[in-house]
């Protein structure tokens, strides 16, 4: 149990995908202008990462490993995630229009995102078992959501701050992201 907890905390805080591994930065800057949008995006990413990592793990361990084709993992995962997100969009659109209105626009953005690809790849590279794999995926997703929500809250405040003309908009967002990243560096001594 303790090992799973360590893995979870590690994925959320210490190895935070955005702020320590610098993955998924395009969403991180693109969707962090507004707090509500970032919450929607954060949880859409978490659910997509979790589900696609489970599928990728099954595909890897039951098809690629027995046939000795583990070198194909990146390309198969890309195909898997892209079609899975498509499928999810079609299903959500039919099943729950409310959820579709909340998440629909983000789902397509996620389809080709590096963070969604890197979680399954890292998971199989580290030889996680099925449970570890789920814990790692949920942790990574929540870590991403946390970083995104923190960033959006800071950027909403930045709109009203007296920022020098040259730094307005994205430049100051980069600086804030750097500071957040430095702050997350502090978690590295936790375990």
């Amino acid at each position: 149990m303790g090992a799973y907890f360590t893995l979870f905390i590690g994925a959320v805080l210490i190895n935070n995908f955005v702020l320590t591994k610098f993955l998924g930065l395009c969403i991180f800057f693109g969707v962090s202008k507004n707090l509500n949008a970032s919450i929607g995006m954060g949880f859409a990413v978490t659910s997509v990462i979790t589900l696609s990592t489970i599928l990728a793990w099954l595909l890897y361990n039951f098809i690629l490993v027995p046939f000795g084709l583990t070198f194909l993992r990146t390309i198969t995962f890309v195909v898997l995630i892209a079609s899975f997100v498509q499928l999810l969009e079609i299903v959500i659109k039919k099943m729950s229009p409310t959820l579709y209105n909340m998440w629909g626009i983000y789902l397509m953005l996620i389809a080709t995102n590096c963070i969604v690809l890197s979680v399954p790849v890292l998971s199989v590279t580290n030889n996680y078992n099925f449970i570890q794999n789920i814990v790692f995926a949920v942790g990574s997703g929540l870590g991403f959501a946390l970083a995104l929500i923190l960033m959006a809250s800071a950027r909403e405040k930045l709109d009203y701050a007296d920022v020098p003309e040259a730094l307005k908009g994205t430049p100051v967002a980069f600086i804030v992201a750097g500071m957040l990243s430095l702050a997350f560096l502090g978690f590295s001594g936790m375990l």
Partner: protein
Amino acid sequence: MDYTQIAIMAVVIMTGVGVVFGFVLALADKKFAMEENPLIGEVEEALPKGQCGACGFAGCAKYAEAVVLDPEVPPNLCVPGKAEVAAVVANLTGKVAEATEPKYAHIRCRGGVGIAKLAFNYKGVHDCAAAKLVQQGPKECKYGCLGFGNCVKACPFGAMSMGENGIPVVNKSLCTGCGKCASICPQHVIELIPISAKVTVSCSSKEMGAAARKACTAACIGCGLCMKNCTHKGGVKVVDHLAIVDPSICRICDDLTCVDKCPTNAIAALVARTKKEENVG
């Protein structure tokens, strides 16, 4: 396994994976197909596409979808489109359009530069919401227009401009009454009034008479003269030291005594008058 075998295996597996996913997607697409009503597109075409959100939906496309699919949604919600669009939408959807009176935005404040006293000199970001964060704004009156023009920026129809005295001016012929400015104004000094309204109160101060007067010479001091002299019962009321007119009653009034009696001209006539010089803020 030699390399050719691996290569063949790789191709087979990749093709297999691709075909399986392709089939699953195709199947899902058929099974979960959403039939889109062609009427939605037609209704959307008829809307003015200001994307102002006055209808209460997230945009023109969302309203078009709602008005076609939901029998409860009335066809006359598009404020900028006025009666013509309502008629077209009603025609397309087979619903009955009720006439709505067009409205326009009115600024309930006349406390421009030199009229409203300043409590301090604000040198921050040129933005109403930001200025309000600093002790409710730089003006002594904490209810009035801050004059940084958030409403001007928000107007999707270019109907607002900043007046010389630091109070925004509404161009009635361009204003569609969408209410974007009213919802963005942090001071809530913008109200939507029907086009037939004859008088209006141009002050939002709920301060007591003396304090209101001290902060701004154009303030409503809540003296109640308008209420006492109103020739149509209940047309003007004073609530929280502030006069409020009820356009549904004032509509039939031609005397407009409240305008004549108001000592600070906070109540102004919106129609041409012969008795007294018009004084619209």
